[in-house]
């Protein structure tokens, strides 16, 4: 007769008793991993090599850090640079760097590393997508291992802000060339695995330098789901814990009713603007551009395009940006006044124009709403579908072959693009250029914001592009999850403060 292990059932029964008595203690393990859903997979993992915002949304603050960083309110904070001093003339920045920082491959971070990073970004062969940030840097010197001296050719009031960007994160010479696939940074996480087309997994570093900012999460996964229906199903079924930027506003309202989900509508830096080709008639006449702007009821447009989520803007600036001025009242919705202005400009019977429209749904819907509004003042708008980015970059951005176009400009504080003579708007105004130069070279922060105010007012007045709305950040996540950013002062998914509340 086989021997029966009599002890086992007893043990099992005991275990069940204990489990029943202390359900929390035995059964509930503290959750320390999170799965975040994103619509677009990053192209590479090196934000200093390519522009797509998804790169920064995965890596910035998680894997890479900068000399400075931007916090959730959009303010510049110290990071790898502990502190700095700026010379009276605004031309010399002396950074004191932290001495306890190492990259995830074990290499120490020093002033030499910082010098390497900045010289690489501004160098001849640099493919940094924001190379212009570094244009005013004359020289970078590692005075000693903890001191970095940056000398400028002209005062650059935004320098500390630019240095906080994904494009300016600190990289280490030995791994810089392979960061695109195997990213190495000083951040709290490192790459565990990238399953291309599906997911990117990060794990917490044990040797992270900043004890105050040590993440609660042991690991995090970014999953890529382009389809909004699939996103909704994944968050409902719990396969994904958070979707910081939900893709479809019309499905979002239904998620707002789910008890175990938190929904937060925040702001982004994405300015949806309908750019006009100022190089050609009749768009070279400010009166025509103003008339087009006055024909559009921005609130109704947001209702039609984005189920009412989003905030109207009157210039190329968002409420997140420092020094924002609300200029939506400069050219308010007034079709009668728009018609008078068109007649004054020599178009009493209106005219026809085309809008080159990327395939993104916000762009298509906006173009359709614009079509209806412009028809009211006798202007016929023909919608020309134009694939983004390839065809759009080629036709609109490079060859300036368009009347009107529509795109969401993602870069924070990019109002300076209107001062570029070769930019697609074809906008030229010495007063505007002067305001931008004054803002960018101001050493006094107040002065800088005041000049940005001037620049905003000039654009609102002259309307080189129709300023429509700021894209909302439709966040949805598990109600037990805390610490995700509600607004997006810079495109990112900083997971440092994310934790489970139970």
């Amino acid at each position, binding site marked *: 007769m086989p021997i029966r292990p009599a002890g086992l059932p007893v043990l099992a029964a005991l275990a069940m008793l204990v489990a029943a008595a202390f359900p929390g203690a035995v059964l509930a393990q503290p959750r320390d991993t999170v799965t975040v859903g994103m619509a677009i*997979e990053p*192209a*590479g993992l090196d934000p200093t*090599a*390519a*522009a*797509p915002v998804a790169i920064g949304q995965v890596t910035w603050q998680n894997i890479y850090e900068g000399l400075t960083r931007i916090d959730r309110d959009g303010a510049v904070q110290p990071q790898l640079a502990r502190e700095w001093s700026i010379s009276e003339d605004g031309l010399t920045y002396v950074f004191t760097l932290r001495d306890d920082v190492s990259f995830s491959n074990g290499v120490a971070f020093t002033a030499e590393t910082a010098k390497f990073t900045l010289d690489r970004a501004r160098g*001849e*062969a*640099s*493919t*940094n*997508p*924001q*190379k*212009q940030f570094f244009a005013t840097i004359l020289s970078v010197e590692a005075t000693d291992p903890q001191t970095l001296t940056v000398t400028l050719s002209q005062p650059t009031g935004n320098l500390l802000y630019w240095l906080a960007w994904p494009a300016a994160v600190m990289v280490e010479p030995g791994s810089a060339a*392979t960061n*695109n*696939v195997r990213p190495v940074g000083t951040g709290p996480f490192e790459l565990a695995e*990238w*399953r*291309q*087309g*599906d*997911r990117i997994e990060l794990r917490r570093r044990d040797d992270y330098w900043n004890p105050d900012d040590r993440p609660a999460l042991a690991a995090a996964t970014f*999953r*890529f*789901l*382009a*389809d909004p*229906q*699939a996103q909704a*199903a*994944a968050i*409902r*079924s719990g*396969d994904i814990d958070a979707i910081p930027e939900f893709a479809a506003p019309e499905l979002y309202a239904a998620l707002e009713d789910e008890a175990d989900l938190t929904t937060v509508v925040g702001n982004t830096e994405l300015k949806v603007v309908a750019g006009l080709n100022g190089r050609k008639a009749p768009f070279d006449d400010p009166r025509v551009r103003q008339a087009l702007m006055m024909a559009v009821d921005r609130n109704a447009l947001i209702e039609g395009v984005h189920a009412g989520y989003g905030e109207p803007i009157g210039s190329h600036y968002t409420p997140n940006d420092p020094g924002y001025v609300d200029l939506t009242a400069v050219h308010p919705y007034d079709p009668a006044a728009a018609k008078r202005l068109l007649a004054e400009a020599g178009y009493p019977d209106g005219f026809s124009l085309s809008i080159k429209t990327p395939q993104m749904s916000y762009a298509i819907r906006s173009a359709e709403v614009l079509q209806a509004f412009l028809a009211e003042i006798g202007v016929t708008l023909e919608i020309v579908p134009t*694939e983004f*980015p*390839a*065809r759009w*970059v*080629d*036709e609109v*951005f*490079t060859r300036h072959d368009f009347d009107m176009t529509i*795109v969401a*400009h*993602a*870069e924070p504080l*990019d109002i300076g*693009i209107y001062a570029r003579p*070769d930019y697609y708007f074809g906008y030229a105004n010495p007063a505007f250029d002067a305001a931008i130069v004054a803002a960018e070279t101001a050493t006094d922060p107040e002065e800088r914001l005041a000049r940005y105010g001037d620049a905003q007012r000039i654009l609102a007045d002259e309307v080189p592009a129709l300023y429509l709305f700021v894209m909302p950040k439709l966040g949805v996540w598990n109600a037990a999850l805390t610490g995700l950013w509600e607004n997006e002062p810079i495109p990112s998914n900083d997971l440092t403060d994310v934790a489970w509340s139970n």
Partner: protein
Amino acid sequence: MLRMIAWRLAGLLATLLAVSVVVFLVMDVLPGDPAAIMLGTSARPDTLAALRLELGLDQPLPLRFAAWIGGALTGDFGTSRTYGVPVAGLILDRLAVTLPLALMAITLSVVLALPLGILAASRRGSFWDVAATGVAQAGVAMPNFWVGLLLILVFASTLGIMPSGGFPGWDAGIGPALAALTLPAVALALPQAAVLTRVTRSAVLDVLHEDFVRTARAKGLTKRAALWRHAVPNALLPVVTVIGLQFTFLIAGAVLVENVFGLPGLGSLAVQALQQRDLIVMQDVVLLLATLVIVVNFLVDLSYLVLDPRLRASA
């Protein structure tokens, strides 16, 4: 028969070469400079020039073609511009999802469609025929991504018994991997099965009116025996052709379903490479897909020889 196979093989190779040239030329005339796309809307001319140099886009067309084909022949399929990893590995990873998915879907489709189609044809006009054609009609009208959404809604969101999407990878175990592929396979199979049911039904009906079936019946075979021994084998030719077409569609055209289920398959790789203007990945994927289509067609042709004795005799 061997000579015929040899001829077909030679034709296959010639087609592949022609396809590779066409693929390369088509990629080159696509609008959009890959470097400009990588650098985005704040690109500066000097940065653009530096990146073009780094990517080798300044090289003349014939040189780039030679480099690509030369590499492919020696097993080097290049490096993805988007991901920075070898394309060969990337494609293998995707095939590890797409091939099992396509096989599951096609098996399911055949298992559903053949019996239904034969049943409908053999009892033409009966309740079974009306029911089968009705279901097939509805199935043809349902797009597979919509079926997919429906399946997610029922089995993932409401019942919570299946994953809503994503692919855990084969290293997570056979069970989870197959579970992840089941709903997408069903979504792909249902509309395909509907088409196949109709094809099978009409093919069997056609054959039932042929002289040889009448002869078989005159010889004294029962209706059932005539159906299975003579009608069905002969009706298989058009059915196999459609299965071949469906298989190639499942490899290349399952993009929408892959999208709905968030599956990293070959179709989504192709679309993403197109959007990012990742030329080398596009070239390799299109070449692979063309090869698959040509090879499947070749196999379908061979299966004719097996299925139809008349063709064998003339070959």
